[in-house]
């Protein structure tokens, strides 16, 4: 039986813009960015949950909220049964040992004045309850470098001496240093060449198998999410429009947005004629999301009800959810 590792219930993260003096004096200009607007999902242990959507759909904010790098407005984030939102600093510290992030910008998240060895050793030294000698830590760093297929000499090099793929491996080594049970990978192969990206994907699959890690795989690359994830959710303007087993979502895609998104992915399929669904315009601003269904302004199958009523996320059977009036007979 699979166990829920993370359960998110009705999570909302808003950003408030224009909280300056002028808007306070005149009570105007306060703009609310509905970054994550009522997301509920369950991530099962040992599996990979793919989160896809275009830029600005709130997928990174959702990830950051799980780690409380951003405070949610409301909702629950249950991690092994405990609500992350209600954790105090001490508990949060413990939680963040078990849950780690691999960031998108592999160079931006490393101090350029620290060597790779120091960067990887940092979480080890922050670990509580255990005092270790320098020697032991060095040994652990060497093991971690080995686990991500880097030379032991890498420990004394600085970030600028590494290629993009190597720097990404250091990010992975740091993330697995404390034996986490959960890792969020935010666009883990962006900016990497094809064959380097393949190496990182292989590495992360190996680590998952070896260390029984659960991944939240945040990406706009649908091919990759299809390949890497077991379950997935498609986000649009802060909400999930479709969710379920990855194979189900790809084989029986129901939401017009999912269909358009998947059809737009360029595939290497020489000689095959693919029918791309072209969406009108671009993703609207999350400051004033459209009424009713948020996708209605770009939807090729829009009808009257979409404007008036917001479609709920309904089960199409077998845990395949979709939020669209076309699939909601009530």
């Amino acid at each position, binding site marked *: 039986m699979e166990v829920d590792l993370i359960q998110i219930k009705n999570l909302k993260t808003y950003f408030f813009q224009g909280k300056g003096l002028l808007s306070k004096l005149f009570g105007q200009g306060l703009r609310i960015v509905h970054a994550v607007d009522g997301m509920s999902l369950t991530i099962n242990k040992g599996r990979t949950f793919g989160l896809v959507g275009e830029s600005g759909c709130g997928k990174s904010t959702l990830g950051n909220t799980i780690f409380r790098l951003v405070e949610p407005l409301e909702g629950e984030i249950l991690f092994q049964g405990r609500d992350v939102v209600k954790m105090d600093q001490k508990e949060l510290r413990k939680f963040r040992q078990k849950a780690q992030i691999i960031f998108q910008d592999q160079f931006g998240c490393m101090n350029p004045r620290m060597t790779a060895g120091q960067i990887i050793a940092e979480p080890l030294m922050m670990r509580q309850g255990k005092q270790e000698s320098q020697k032991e830590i060095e040994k652990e760093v060497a093991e971690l470098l080995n686990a991500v297929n880097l030379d032991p000499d890498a420990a004394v090099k600085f970030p600028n001496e590494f290629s993009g793929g190597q720097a990404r491996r250091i990010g992975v080594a740091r993330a697995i240093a404390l034996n986490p049970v959960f890792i969020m990978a935010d666009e883990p192969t962006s900016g990497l060449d094809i064959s380097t990206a393949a190496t990182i994907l292989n590495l992360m699959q190996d680590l998952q198998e070896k260390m029984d890690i659960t991944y939240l795989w945040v990406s706009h690359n649908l091919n990759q999410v299809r390949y890497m994830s077991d379950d997935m959710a498609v986000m649009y303007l802060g909400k999930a429009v479709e969710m379920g087993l990855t*194979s189900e979502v790809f084989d029986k895609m129901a939401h017009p947005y999912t269909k358009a998104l998947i059809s*737009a992915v360029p*595939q290497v399929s*020489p000689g095959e004629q693919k029918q791309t669904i072209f969406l009108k*315009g*671009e993703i609207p601003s999350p400051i004033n999301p459209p009424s009713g269904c948020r996708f209605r302004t770009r939807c090729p199958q829009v009808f009257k009800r979409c404007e008036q009523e917001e479609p709920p996320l309904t089960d199409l059977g077998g845990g395949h959810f979709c939020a669209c009036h076309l699939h909601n007979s009530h």
Partner: protein
Amino acid sequence: MSEPLLEVSQLTLDYNLGSRKMRALDRVSFSLDKGQVLGVAGESGCGKSTLGLAIIRLLPKVAEIRRGEIVFDGRDLLKLSEAQMDREIRGQKIAMIFQNPQNALNPVFKIETQMIDILRVQDKYQNPGNRKRRQDFRQQAIERLKGTGIADPAVRVSNYPFEFSGGMKQRVMIGMALSSGTSLLLADEATTALDVTIEAQINRLITELAAEYGTSILYITHNLGVLSEMADRIMIMYAGRIFEMGWTKSVLGSPRHPYSTALLESLPGRQTRGKRLLSIPGFVPPLDRLPGGCSFHPRCPFAEEVCRQEVPPLIEVDKGHWSACLFDQKRGRQKWKWI
């Protein structure tokens, strides 16, 4: 019979960085027919961007063309003066769009100001002596924006770049670059920074406009999927050399070079969950320390002694399909699997 618009032959280019000499292009030869889309693919550092910049002659000062010709419309571009390039070629017959439209637009000027500048220069050389007023150019700018599918062009033309999204900025760039006089468009990773739905829109726009104006395209990208859908022919580059070239269907459907095969097999395209992706061992060699013989041999599982000694020539292995691999040339046609 289609006639070639661009013929590059034996183009060899070095970057001279102090004592280090990097060979960025090594005897690159290909041709591009009128109205055709040629895709250039390869990993970073393979020379694909350098090739684009060499054609439009926007190379940095450290670059030195050692030999070769770039014959465009019957003339060798390398023999033209800077003034001739400006007057007749750059922004006139050959246009280029880049990955980052942000950096190509000046943030402190309105879109109309920047577009009128370009239109004025284009007009100055196309219709010398014929003076147009600013209003006429502004109208022309609005027409161009309209042509790229920007809603409300008459209003948007007086916006600043920050008021446009990434996809719309790229539309503006296309509107500036492409006119009826453009015979060659160089697109260097033009949609890499965009979301897939926007990428599809922009690529369709490029294709449609090019078809309308009869423009040929040299489409530089690392995304083989995009090329599979857009390009008539594909050229795979590695470390400054062309490794494989041919019709899209044959290069992607039955690649002959081990490197092309490897690239295709390392894509997580329709690969099933759990199946390992192919990852090429080693890394792309730095250009100042290229291995002798075939530059791919240290990473190639099929490499033999001869691959370390001889530079494989690019030869026609099938009708219209060229490949530079000694192993393939010796063994003849076969489909190999990477281990």
